[in-house]
């Protein structure tokens, strides 16, 4: 029944933003950011359970935990950069949104370098 809550919240937020926007467009924009953040915070509580399950599975399969941790950090950076870029795009600042996405890509690339080196080392060890 959680989806009913989220959909009801979204509809209420949309109607209130429509109502406020005629008189106060600035507060309407802040309200849209706030509604989005409330929904994301709500869903992150469930995402924590999913990530706990995935971590347990990885521990069971005895996968190296550094890989899983890097993967989770990359997912977090991607979500956060996407969120910030969407907020900036809603405010009409397309160029800042593009820069945020660019920074997210670069930071993900830096995080992925150790995994890339591990893959390269294992490939080199296969070659006689």
């Amino acid at each position: 029944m959680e989806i009913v809550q989220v959909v009801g919240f979204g509809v209420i937020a949309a109607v209130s933003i429509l109502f406020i926007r005629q008189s106060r467009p600035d507060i309407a924009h802040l309200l849209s950011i706030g509604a989005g953040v409330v929904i994301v915070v709500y869903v992150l509580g469930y995402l924590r359970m999913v990530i706990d399950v995935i971590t347990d599975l990885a521990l069971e399969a005895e996968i190296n935990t550094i890989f899983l941790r890097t993967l989770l950090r990359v997912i977090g950076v991607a979500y956060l950069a996407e969120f910030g870029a969407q907020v900036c795009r809603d405010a009409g600042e397309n160029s800042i949104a593009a820069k945020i996405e660019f920074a997210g890509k670069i930071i993900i690339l830096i995080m992925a370098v150790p995994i890339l080196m591990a893959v390269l080392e294992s490939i080199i060890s296969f070659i006689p």
Partner: protein
Amino acid sequence: MNVLRVDLLFQIVGIGIFISVLNIVLKQAGKEEQAQLLTLVGVVIVFLLVIQLIGELFHSFRNIFNL
């Protein structure tokens, strides 16, 4: 268990309606400067609420993804 916080949404909507009504009243009374200041104060209060919410979002992101 985590809850969807509708009260924050209604708080911001209430502040918005309150500010716009008081703005109309002050403009009718011919006090333009006070109306301008009232608008500024309302935006700052809503901004503080949203900033706290965004801080909470960053905190939970750090907790979950070990950023």
